[in-house]
């Protein structure tokens, strides 16, 4: 049924567009995400005081900034629905798949924007030029995919549970740790350090993580969303 397939894509797009429009009006998540990243970056840049960073340290800094910025605001898409009491309406009007992938897409957009803004800032403020752009961009995209699939499910879980704040990071971190470890390794290569030998394995792990986390998140989402 081609019509059903296209309407399912339409529904995902509708959720995505609704979130994007609402975010454009309030700019709540964007502000939290970007200012948090900027503040952390400034603190790091100031504290290291232009000392020469090794590629490993720079990639650790980069992903710590991205992870904690993401954990500070990516639950917002679901928390907002609960706080403004629109969650029930969303449950009634939209199928679970559309809600999950709509929110997933919106979070992915936010995170890719953050990475795109953070890259030049990082190069300028920490004086760390990117040596291998292909590896760098592939790492950013795969990292965002893995991060988003995990935080979308756990964000929904947090919102439905009615517990906010610190618990989001507490729940996300153990699940995200394998991703973080591998991302730091591949980013090190992008900054011109590390060993290129394990790069293929690294990307394989990142890709597998994104696929597994997205599939598991999508399959488990109805159990979170429906009471």
């Amino acid at each position, binding site marked *: 049924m081609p019509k059903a397939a296209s309407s399912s894509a339409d529904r995902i797009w509708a959720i995505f567009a609704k979130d994007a429009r609402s975010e454009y009006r309030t700019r709540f998540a964007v502000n939290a995400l970007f200012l948090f990243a900027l503040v952390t970056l400034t603190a790091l840049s100031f504290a290291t005081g232009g000392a020469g960073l090794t590629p490993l340290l720079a990639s650790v800094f980069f992903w710590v900034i991205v992870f904690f910025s993401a954990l500070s605001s990516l639950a917002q898409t679901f928390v907002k629905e609960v706080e403004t009491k629109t969650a029930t309406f969303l449950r009634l009007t939209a199928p679970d798949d559309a809600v999950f992938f709509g929110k997933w897409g919106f979070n992915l957009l936010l995170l890719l924007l953050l990475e795109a803004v953070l890259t030049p800032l990082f190069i300028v403020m920490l004086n760390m030029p990117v040596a291998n752009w292909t590896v760098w961009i592939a790492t950013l995209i795969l990292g965002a995919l893995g991060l988003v699939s995990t935080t979308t499910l756990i964000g929904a879980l947090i919102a439905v549970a009615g517990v906010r704040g610190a618990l989001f990071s507490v729940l996300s971190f153990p699940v995200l740790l394998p991703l973080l470890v591998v991302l730091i390794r591949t980013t090190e290569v992008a900054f011109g350090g590390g060993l290129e030998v394990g790069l293929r394995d690294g990307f394989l*792990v990142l890709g597998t993580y994104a696929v597994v986390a997205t599939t598991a998140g999508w399959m488990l989402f109805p159990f979170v969303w429906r009471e």
Partner: protein
Amino acid sequence: MGIVRIAAVVLITIVIIAAFTIAPPLAAMGTSGAASRIFFFHVPMAQVSFLSFVVAAVYAIVYLRTRKTDHDLFSSVSAELGLVFSIVAMITGSIWAKQAWGAYWNWDPRQLFLFVLVLFYGAFFALRQAIVQADARRRLSAVYLIFGGAISPLLFFVLPRMYQSLHEDANQVVVATQGKFNMSGPVATVFITSIAGFLCLYVWLLKLGVAAARMQEEQG
């Protein structure tokens, strides 16, 4: 149930005695061979902590299908036991690491795995305690457990290999070569007895924990 309890007590008593008398010290493990004796306790504990994670995740899946309180109790009690066993395994592991590698903590892939397991269990119980409503607590914590279970193979099987290919400094080579030893004769016998003993201990504690949790449930 009585058999499991008696078997656990008898087997572990035998292992405690045998580990210090029958099993010969393994010179390859650590500076003095005597340090290797901790393996008869540490490895089964680590295995049980992993087993309880699997059991907890399987019961979480069953719970989401059946929605029976009992399945949730099995899942959460197994996770509780997993937390205890993984903490004890982490402590015994780092005592051995101090002897063999010179430091309590080396970020060896196996140490990392146990550490993440402890963090995950901690997060799981933080979530359970934060949700007041019983139905939501069971449903959401089951989802979290299954999600963690889906990710864990990456951590368990893939990451150690990644580490060895990307991080081949002296310490890691020591870790890679000293972590393996060929078991034979009395060592293997004691080792297998110990695994059986700790398995019985786990089953006994699981049944006991579920019975206690059921009583709490009935009292409200």
